[in-house]
Each structure stands twice: as C-alpha cells, then as structure tokens.
C-alpha cells in the first residue's frame, strides 16, 4: 500500500466519483425516452443502482495500492474479506456486464487465441480475455493482490482462478465446500468453518490489517440483513401484478452479489423495497397486461435480456421467479453473528448449486406454488454444467408433478455464438401457444 495511492483513492472517492455522478445525470437528461406500452413505469431506483455500480467500477480503477484488492467468486463468503477492508471485484458480475454490453464474444475470442477452449465457461473466458487484452466496458479493473474462490457454485471457478493465480503469481484462497449429495453434515460444517479461520493469517498478511472479531460480526450481520432485504424485494413478485420482473432482478442483484456486507448495498435494497411496496399499493405492474406468470431457470442470457423482456411482455407474460436471483436470499438467513464461522459455513455450503438436484426440484416446486407460476423457461447454459446438467429430467418431473409447461432454450450466458435465434424462436412460439391456449 502506498501513501500516494491512498491519497489519490480518497480524492477520487470524495470528489472524482461525485463529479462523475453529476456528469452522468446531466448526460442522462439529454437522452430521449420512448416508453414501451407493454411495460409499467420503469423503476426509479434504477438511477441509484447505476450510480452505485458506476461508482464501484470507477473507484476500482484507483484501488490498487490504496486498498488491498481481491477478485472474488460470486458464491464466496466475502464478509471475511470485508473485515480486512478488501476492495472486491467480481469477475462474474463483470462478465455479465460484458455480456449485456455485447462485448462477451470478443473477449472470449481473445482467451481462445491463448489456447482456452471455446467450450469453457464464458465468464472465465471473458475474464481471461480481459487479462490478455485489458479490454473492459468498466474502464479498468485493478490487478488483485489476492484471489478468493469458492467451489460452492462450481469447480470451474477453481480451475479458472488457478490460471489467474499462475499468471499473476498471487495467492489463491479456496473455500472448499463439500457438495451436498445428501444432507449437510457436522463434519462438513466443521471443515468449512476451520478453513475460514485458517485463512485469517494470509488475509492479515496481504491486507496488513489485523482481524477484529467484533468488526467481522457486524459485517456478517449487515450481510444477513442485506440478503434478507433482497429476499423481500424478490417476494414482492408474489403480488399480482408483480411490481417488477426477473429481468429487473437480474440487473438489481449486482449490489447483493458485489457489495454484500457494505452499508451502501443494504441501503439500496431498503430504497428499492419501499418503491416496490408503493407500486404494489398503487397496483402498478412491471408488465401492463400481466396474463401469465413465468419462472426462469439458470443464469440470464445476458445479451438477450432486453429482447426477451420485450418479447415476453408483448405476450402479457411476466417472469416473477428465478432460482438464480433467489440464490442470494435462500440461505443467508443462516448467517448468525454469534457464530460467524459456523453460520457462514452453513449459509455458503447450502447454496443451490452446491445442493443435490432433489433440493433444486423441491425448491422450484415451492416457488412455482408461492409465485403462482404458469410456465417455466429453462436456459440450458452451455457455459455452466452445474446449473444445466439435470435440466432435461427436471423439466419432465415438473410436468409430471405439477403439470407446468416449460421450454428449453439452448444458449449461453455471454457467448452469443452459441445462440440460435431461429431455434429459440421456434421453441418459444410453441411455448407461447401452449400457454395461451
């Protein structure tokens, strides 16, 4: 850490970032806005979300040398890093951003030029592509001092972060979370909790900060409360009409993923929740003519989010539930500041992708009932084996058990080369027909 970097970071935080926000606002006013009659009024809090995320990526440019920097997987228990004041970057969130801005394929290709196979997870390829080219829609990402991965979402992140650790010769901390083929055991919990404690000396060394239990406990509590708010935000979609859509949730989950354990993220969901409650009070739906309610399975097809939102809304269909967005609300209630390590082990060891497929099926059944879901869209994501293997049987079982029709879209999260518009259209038309008759 250098004094000059710290001063520069502080300056940007106090003056640079607010100036940028002001500029952003001024720019926004000039843009014409053409409302789509299929949608209700847009969420006002989106402006605040944009500010938060722009500021996060803007300040990231100045973080190196001023703050310890860690790159973190989306399912990793970042609360521990917050206790050492790490500036955290989530390559998966960055990958989604690249996908949404249609830069995904280009960055994937850059990784492929360095020998990474086109069949590998495209979040990983985007990240490696960024490593080789420096290209990013976020300006510049700070080179990390540490990598922090958890295989509770997939083993892929371990292979991917191993490559980064090799290129940069920096430490990689793995939070190894045994897969729950059946129920989680005491032995699993002790193993995970012990790993978190084992990491502390490395985190102290890299961050040059001492671990303080009370501060850690406060962060755990804040993360718990933030995720609980996120859960309440999602639960507003149980209302008919739903005041938001899953496509909104895909975008608005960025703070709970990337800034969990920080006050800004907690405050944001308070703001969002109160707006959603207002909308419910006024009967404002995200889709003006909500006739059918749908559930999404798997990560978003980031380059198609807008197109899909418009397409489904034009049929009076609203997505009101998704296993993916639910993941940051489902298990966090286990977090307990009185037993921070054990409760973190439970909360992070039980996330959906670390659980057997029976768990997922039961969860989906419950969500279908709770959210009054009429149909299911299953994204078979080529990048993501843990999310996708099992979907064909899941589709069959949900039809058998609940009679819920579904459609499988073969695509990818960010690599648009794996998306066939024609095939998707044929399948979706059949699906719309089945739902509308």
């Amino acid at each position, binding site marked *: 850490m250098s004094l000059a970097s710290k001063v520069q970071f502080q300056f940007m935080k106090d003056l640079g970032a607010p100036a940028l926000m002001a500029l952003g606002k001024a720019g926004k006013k000039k843009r014409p806005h053409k409302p789509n009659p299929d949608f209700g009024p847009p969420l006002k809090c989106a402006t605040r979300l944009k500010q938060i995320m722009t500021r996060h990526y803007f300040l990231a440019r100045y973080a190196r040398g001023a703050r310890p920097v860690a790159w973190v997987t989306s399912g990793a228990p970042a609360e521990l890093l917050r206790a050492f004041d790490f500036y955290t970057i989530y390559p998966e969130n960055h990958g989604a951003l690249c996908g949404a801005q249609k830069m995904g394929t280009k960055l994937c290709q850059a990784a492929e030029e*360095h*020998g*990474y*196979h086109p*069949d*590998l*997870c495209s979040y*990983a390829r985007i990240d490696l592509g960024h490593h080789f080219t420096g290209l990013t829609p976020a300006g510049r990402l700070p080179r990390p001092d540490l990598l922090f991965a958890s*295989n509770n979402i*997939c*083993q*892929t992140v*371990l*292979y*991917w972060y*191993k*490559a980064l*650790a*090799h*290129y940069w010769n920096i430490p*990689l901390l*793995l939070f*190894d979370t*045994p*897969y729950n*083929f*059946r129920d989680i*055991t005491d*032995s699993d919990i*002790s*193993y995970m909790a*012990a*790993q978190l404690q*084992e990491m502390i000396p490395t985190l102290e060394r890299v961050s040059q900060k001492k671990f303080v239990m009370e501060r850690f406990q406060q962060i755990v509590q804040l993360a718990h409360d933030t995720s609980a708010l996120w859960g309440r935000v999602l639960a507003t979609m149980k209302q008919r009409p739903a005041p938001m859509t899953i496509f909104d949730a895909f975008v608005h989950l960025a703070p709970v993923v990337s800034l969990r354990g920080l006050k800004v993220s907690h405050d944001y969901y308070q703001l969002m929740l109160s707006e959603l409650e207002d909308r419910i009070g006024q009967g404002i739906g995200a889709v003006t003519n909500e006739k059918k309610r749908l559930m999404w399975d798997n990560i978003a097809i980031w380059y198609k989010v807008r197109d899909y939102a418009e397409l489904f809304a034009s049929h009076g269909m609203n997505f009101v539930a998704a296993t993916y967005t639910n993941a940051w609300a489902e298990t966090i209630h286990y977090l307990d500041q009185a037993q921070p390590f054990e409760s973190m082990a439970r909360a992070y060891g039980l996330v959906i992708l670390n659980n*057997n*497929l*029976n768990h997922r*099926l039961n969860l989906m059944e419950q969500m279908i009932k709770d959210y009054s879901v009429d149909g299911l869209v299953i994204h*078979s994501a*080529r990048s993501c*084996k*843990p999310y*996708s*293997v*099992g*979907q*064909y*049987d*899941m589709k069959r*079982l949900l039809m058998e058990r609940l009679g819920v029709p579904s459609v499988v879209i*073969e695509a990818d999260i960010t690599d648009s080369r794996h998306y066939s518009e024609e095939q998707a259209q044929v399948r979706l038309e059949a699906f719309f027909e089945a739902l509308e008759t």
Partner: protein
Amino acid sequence: MTRQEYLRRQKEELGRKVCGVFPAQYPKEILWALGLAPAEIWDPPLASEQAAAHLQPYICSVVRQGLELLMQGQAGVCDAFLFPHTCDSIQNLASVVNDYIGLDKPCYFFYHPKAPYGPPARAYYLEQLKSLASALEPLAGPLDLAELKRRVAQGQEVARLHGQIYHRRAKGELNCSNAAFYQAVRQGEYLFPDDLIPFLEGFLAGAGGHAPRGQRVLLSGVLPNPPEILSLLDDLGVAVAADDFLACSRRYLFAPSASSDPWQALSEQYFALPPCSSKGSPIQERLDYLLASAEQSGAKGVIFYLVKFCEPELFDVPILTEELKKRGLPCLALDVEINQGLSGQMATRVEAFLEMLG
C-alpha cells in the same frame, strides 16, 4: 475373460457384491475390505442411444457413456454405484442418477478435499474415509479393521508394482507395446487385489527387455482412449515413456505410508498422489511434475488427450503447453471423444508432430 465375466464370477463364486465406480479418486481399499468388488466405469464401448434424453450435447463423453451404461441396463452386475466428486459433470450426474432417474440400487458419493491441503482438509479427508465405510456397511459390512489393514497393505503392493512398471518403462526396460501397456495397467479398474497382484507380477516378469528404440513421448489427459492413438504410436515405433493420465498414474503412483493405522495410511497416500487438475492442484505443481517425468523418462514431447468438454483438463492445458514449449518440450493437444476412433486428420497431426520431434 471379459470384465463382465470376471465380475459375475466374483459374485457367483466368491459371493462378493459389485460396486460400479465412476471416475476417479476413491479409497478402493475400503471396498476391498468390505468384500465389495469395484468395477470402474470410464469408457464403456456403447452406441449412444438413451443418455441424450438426460444430458445436453455439451457434456463429456465419459459422463455420457457412463450414463448410457446405466440406461441401457448394461450394469446389471453392479449392486450399487459410487460417485467420487471429480468435476461438475460427475457431481451432477451422481445427482441425476440418484434423484431423478431413480435406479433401484443404492448410490454413494465420496467427496475429497481440493488443494491446497491444510490441516482442516486432512482432518476432513480422514472423516470422509470413515463415513464412506459406515455408509457402505449396510450393503456389505461390517468392516473388520484387521481386514482393512490387510487390504491397505495389498493396495501398497499394487502401488509398488505399478511404480516398478512405470519406472521400468521410463528407463526403456519394458518390452511391450503401448497398447499392451495400457491394457495391463487398466486391469486395476476391476481386478480384485488377490488377482491384480499376481497379474501385475506376471506382467513385469513377461515384459523384460528393451523398449523400441524410436522416439519417446509423454502422454497426458484423462485416459488413453481412443486406444487407436496408442496403436498409431506403436506402428510408428514411438514409445510412450511416461504418462500423467487421471485414470492411470495420477491414481496409481504413490509412496506407501508407513503408518500402522489404516485410515491414516489411506489419508497420507491420497495427499501424496501426483498433482491433478480434478483435485485443484496448482498448475505449477503439475508443470513441475510433467517436466520431471519427461526428464526422467527421456520423453521429447507431450501429447495431451483432451476429452471434449473436460473442464478440469482444458483449463490447465494453455499454461502447461506454453511453459512446456518454453522449456523445449513440444506439445500436441488432441480433442478426443472416447470410443470414436482416430480420424485421418488426427492421425496426420500426430504424424506431423512426431516428425517435428525428429
């Protein structure tokens, strides 16, 4: 005798139950001690018929063929199945089979900790060994500790014999074709140790002499399939000097533990295995291992057998090839589908690679 015939005899004549085991790392000594015959399922040669209804086309052929075996009812000899936690695809396959397809045979799962191995990982692995044994006891128990000790000792003898076979091959003192070498080494996927040990001893005794004098290469990847690549190397007079296959040396080569406690011995041996992508070993460790193997065996190039869609391997390969090349070891990466033979184009690439080695 075919694998199927051998396994049937294990059941019918010796009263052993058979446990189908998916790739890759598991403590087979525990199964042996329970009188369970492990039958590993890596690459059953079956036409693809039913797995496609359960798995997307982007899943590797090892997983696909394994499921095909179950769906076609060709694993009737097995009384149970064990799924070690090897990769995302095997993990989900285990759950698809157990939760969605519903075979009417018990399924077990074995989680092994991923690198790096600190004290919590070591303690956890010991507990996992014991909990696997307890889980299997209703099927084949009870477990007798003295029997476990005996089987651990047999496992160490098997490792010693494999070590000798590999060592003699590396020194050019094994007179057998590449195809015959892997046929022999892969007997460990189903032979009970009482038969495996004499088999390996016989193999060693019968394969004395010198390797062909041609070029020497190192093979890396998951398993030596398609075997046609081995035959091609044989035809071209090229000797495989060493390998780093997940199905072979990455599981077979370890220094026996001196511990008298069988659990401790199994644990120490697991952590002493060569580096492996599926266990999350740092790439540098694997690189060092490959470089040392090449140096000790005189291999002048590395051929990667890359099973299509195999993430653990595909992520390691770009750095490995870049670094190996920098150190004067040319590399060839082949995308393979198991049991799909060798295309003319692939054969040409192998030949061109070998010509380049000189």
